């Protein structure tokens, strides 16, 4: 009986070998425009990487071109999300995964700080209330 490895399947070589493909060049050029807009008017933007017809090589090329920056955040909400600033300040690489570890969204955000990391104004009041409730249960506070 033949083994799986005996089946003569030939993997088609990637269309763009080495370097950065045309799609990546276009994306990098778009990022320059978005960064200039962010600098001039504080307007944030995002690019959905899953909506673009990018090969694995293209994605790897884009990762190499943008590199790793100083900030790495992990969001633990309905699954883990990795939020990293690239070596290009203002350009963030965001990966959202579900509870099963499946990648459900992959974005590049051009912003000072991805909105999902910021605390919502309405939640600040909730935070104060939670602390008050906790303090009320504290033995010292109750003694007073």
């Amino acid at each position, binding site marked *: 009986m033949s083994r799986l490895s005996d089946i*003569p*399947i*030939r993997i*088609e070589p990637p*269309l763009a070998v080495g370097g950065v493909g045309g799609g990546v060049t276009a994306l990098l050029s778009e990022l320059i425009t978005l960064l200039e807009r962010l600098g001039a008017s504080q307007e944030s*933007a*995002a*690019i*959905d990487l*899953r*909506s673009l*017809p990018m090969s694995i090589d293209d994605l790897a090329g884009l990762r190499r071109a943008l590199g790793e920056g100083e900030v790495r955040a992990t*969001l633990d*909400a*309905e*699954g883990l*999300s990795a939020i990293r600033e690239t070596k290009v300040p203002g350009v963030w690489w965001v990966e*959202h995964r*579900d509870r099963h570890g*499946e*990648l*459900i*969204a*992959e*974005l590049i*955000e051009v912003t000072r700080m991805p*909105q*999902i990391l910021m605390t*919502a104004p309405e*939640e600040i009041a909730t935070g104060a209330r939670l602390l008050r409730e906790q303090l009320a249960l504290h033995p010292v506070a109750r003694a007073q």
Partner: protein
Amino acid sequence: MPRSDIEVTVGEMLRQHGISRRGFIKFCTAAASAMALPPSMGVAMAEQLIHARRPSVLYLSFQECTGCLESLTRSFAPTIENLIFNVISLDYDDTLMAAAGEAAESARMQAMKDNFGKYVLIVDGSVPTGAGGAYCTAGGRSAVDTLREAAKGAAAIVCVGTCSAFGGIPFADPNPTEAWPVMAIVGDKPIINVSGCPPIPEVITGTLLQFVTTGKVPDLDEHRRPKVFFGNTIHDRCYRRPFYDQGKFAKSFDDEGARNGWCLYELGCKGPTTYNACATVKWNGGTSFPIESGHGCIGCSEPGFWDKGSFYAAQSTPLWGKAGESSPREVLELTAAAVSAGAVIGVASAGVSRLRQHRSAQDADQRESNGDN
């Protein structure tokens, strides 16, 4: 007095289930990505939904195989659990709900009464009209009667699957149960067709989420399918398209061309005439789609796909749609128009009869051209 479930906003429901605002933004971002909406829409959608009330949704299953519901329950983004528990109030689904018999039917009646004019009606399966509707009954009522009754108070109807959208396999020749799609029976309500056999799960949940968020019927194509998912053909977005353009075709499923991943057009791929999101959204959480597994598209999201000849004959093989004769779509439109005029059965029967004559003639042509006896 405690508020009913439907009065609770999505935000309150999220808090009850311990889901944070960030978790919900993430859910909406993934949904926006699946729906090919701009990424900024994810945050906007989350902010809007958090303050919205959860709409009542009724899911009716008629002449179907439950494949569509099986597909729906395998949605990755958004997951059906997320939708059901947080965004919608699924008040009736005879397959999923714990209640049965009288209790289930009274839940449906109550939801229809409480939310008259506001609920979303999902229909799965075609509607048989033969033998007075006796081919599909539940709780002593025929599918056609249940549909007409439930449609009256619906804000919109979402037809899930090719059977409810276009008649599907029950509608295929010789259509022994005289099955019809929903749009041939209900003519006065907004209808969104989410076709496919089954539809892609994320396309079902994405369409629902989009409607719930905006409260509006999305832009639809000529077959009433959301353009955001059905705007391109499989061929337009197929990763094998460059081979088609280069004239490189697999001639059999085990030849050199098939191993090289060349275009499957000559093996019957219906990608060039099939509008769906398989090549972009893909299946099983974005893993792959049929062409990626080496099989051509069978065109399951198009009207009449079951009667368009062999799945393995190239599209250039003549089938139906000769100049001057009615296509299945035209027959459906004719029927829908007749419904509003109150003359459904006669015209529908005439349409079916003409279709059958047409198909018989074409089958004869086909056999002749193949040299069959």
